[in-house]
C-alpha cells in the first residue's frame, strides 16, 4: 500500500510542521516578555490562526484516513496519536498567545524584578516540547520517558515562583496586579509542559500499544 504509506508520511510532516510553529510561538512569547518586546508578542498573537488552521487540517486528514484506509495496528495507533497530539499542540499555541497577552500588559508596567524562574521554566518546557516531537519522529526510544520525568522540574519551579511572588505581594500589596500576572505566565508554561508530557505519553502508546497516562513515573 504505497499510497497509504505516502499519506502517513505526509501526515507526519504536517504534524512536525505544526510542532515547529508551536515551538516558535512558545519561544517568541517568552522572549517578548523577558526582553520586553511587545511587537514580538503581537506577532505571536497574530500568527495563532495559522496554528489553528493547520490543526483543523490535520484532524480532517486523520478522519479521512480512518474512513478510507481503515487502519489497523501500528497505523491505527499512529493516526489516533496524531489526532491527540495535534490537540495538545494547538493548546500550547493558545497558551503561547496567553503569555504574549500578559507580556504586552506587563511590558507597560515597570519591571518588578529581573525574570529568573520564568526563563528557567521556559527553557525546560521548550526542551520537553522539542524532545516529545523528536520522540514522535524517532519512535521507540527512552526520550518520551525522559520528557515525562522532566515535568516534575517544571512543577517545582511553578511552586517556587509562586511562593516567592507571594512573599513580595504580602510585603507590598501595590504590586499585586503585576505579580499575579507573573504567576499566570508561570502557570501557562507549566500547562505547556503538561501538554508536552501528554505527547510523550501518546508516543509511548503509539510505539508499544501501552497506555502510561496517569501513571507515576513510567519506566521503559
Amino acid at each position, binding site marked *: *500500500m504505497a499510497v*497509504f504509506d505516502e499519506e502517513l508520511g505526509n501526515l507526519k510532516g504536517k504534524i512536525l510542521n505544526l510542532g515547529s510553529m508551536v515551538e516558535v510561538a512558545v519561544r517568541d512569547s517568552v522572549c517578548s516578555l523577558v526582553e520586553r518586546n511587545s511587537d514580538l508578542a503581537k506577532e505571536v498573537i497574530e500568527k495563532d490562526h495559522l496554528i489553528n488552521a493547520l490543526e483543523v487540517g490535520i484532524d480532517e486528514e486523520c478522519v479521512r484516513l480512518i474512513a478510507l484506509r481503515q487502519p*489497523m*495496528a501500528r497505523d491505527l495507533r499512529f493516526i489516533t496519536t496524531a489526532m491527540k497530539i495535534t490537540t495538545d499542540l494547538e493548546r500550547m499555541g493558545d497558551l503561547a498567545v496567553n503569555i504574549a497577552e500578559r507580556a504586552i500588559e506587563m511590558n507597560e508596567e515597570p519591571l518588578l524584578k529581573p525574570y529568573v524562574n520564568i526563563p528557567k521554566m521556559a527553557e525546560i518546557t521548550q526542551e520537553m516540547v522539542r524532545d516529545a516531537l523528536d520522540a514522535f519522529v524517532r519512535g521507540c526510544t527512552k526520550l518520551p520517558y525522559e520528557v515525562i520525568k522532566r515535568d516534575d522540574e517544571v512543577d517545582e519551579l511553578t511552586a517556587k515562583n509562586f511562593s516567592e511572588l507571594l512573599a513580595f505581594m504580602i510585603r507590598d500589596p501595590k504590586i499585586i496586579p503585576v505579580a499575579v500576572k507573573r504567576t499566570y505566565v508561570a502557570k501557562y508554561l507549566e500547562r505547556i509542559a503538561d501538554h508536552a508530557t501528554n505527547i510523550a505519553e501518546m508516543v509511548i502508546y503509539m510505539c*508499544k*500499544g501501552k497506555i502510561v497516562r496517569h501513571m507515576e513515573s513510567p519506566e521503559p
Partner: protein
Amino acid sequence: MVENKNIFEIKDFNIYYGHFMAVKSVTLNIEAHKITAIIGPSGCGKSTLLRSLNRMNDLIINSWVEGQALFHGVDIYHKDTDVIELRRRVGMVFQKPNPFPSSVYENVTYGPRIRGIKKKSQLDETVEKALVRADLWKEVKDKLNESGMSLSGGQMQRLCIARSLAQEPEVLLFDEPTSALDPISTTNIENLLQELQKTVTIVIVTHNMQQAARVSDFTAFMYLGEMIEFGETDTLFVNPQNKLTEEYITGRFG
C-alpha cells in the same frame, strides 16, 4: 469441578493432503459461546482447519491428520466417533448460499426428518423456531412452500443458517459466509452471528479483516499452515505481538 469453557481443544495438530502439510502443528482452544475468527491469506490452511472441526475434510481423498483435536474433551478423529452426530452438533455454513432445490419448509425440515421426526406439528414448530433464530421468519413466513432458490442471496444464506439451526447444533462453522453478499446482507448476517452467539459457539473463516474485527471475540492469524498469533480480537487488531500479523493486518504483506 469447574466447567471447561473450551469447547474445542486443538493441540499440535497437523492436517495433510497426501504429502502436503496444509496445517502445521496448530494449537488452539475455542471457547464456548464466543465468536472465534480465523484470518490469513489464501492457502494458509484456515478453511482446512475449520473443516477439520466437524470432519468435512474426510470427504477429501488423501487427507489425514496427526495430533490432538478434542470436542468436549473427546477425540474428534477417534475411530468410534459418530461423524453424522458430530456434524449435527457442529454445523457448517459455506461461502456460497447452497439451499436445496426444494421449498423453504423442506430445506429447514430436511435434517429433523432424516433424524426421524415425522409429526407435522413438531416440524412446523422447528421451522418457525429455526427461521426466527435465523432472522428470516418475517420475510418468508408466507412463502414457506416456495423454492429456497427463489430467495435473495442474503435470504438464502440465512435459510442455510436456519437449516443448520434446525439440527440444534452447539457449534456453527462459517466459511466466508458473506463474501458473496452485498453490504446490507452482510450486516444482517453479522448482526445474526452476534445474536446466535448466545446459544451457539461460532468459528468463522473470513478474508474480510474488518469483519473479523467487527464480529469476533478472538482472532487467529494463520500463515503457510501455521498459527502465527491467536488472541483477543481487541488486542490483535490494535496491538499485535507478532511482526507477520502486524504486516498482514496493515496491508504490508510480502
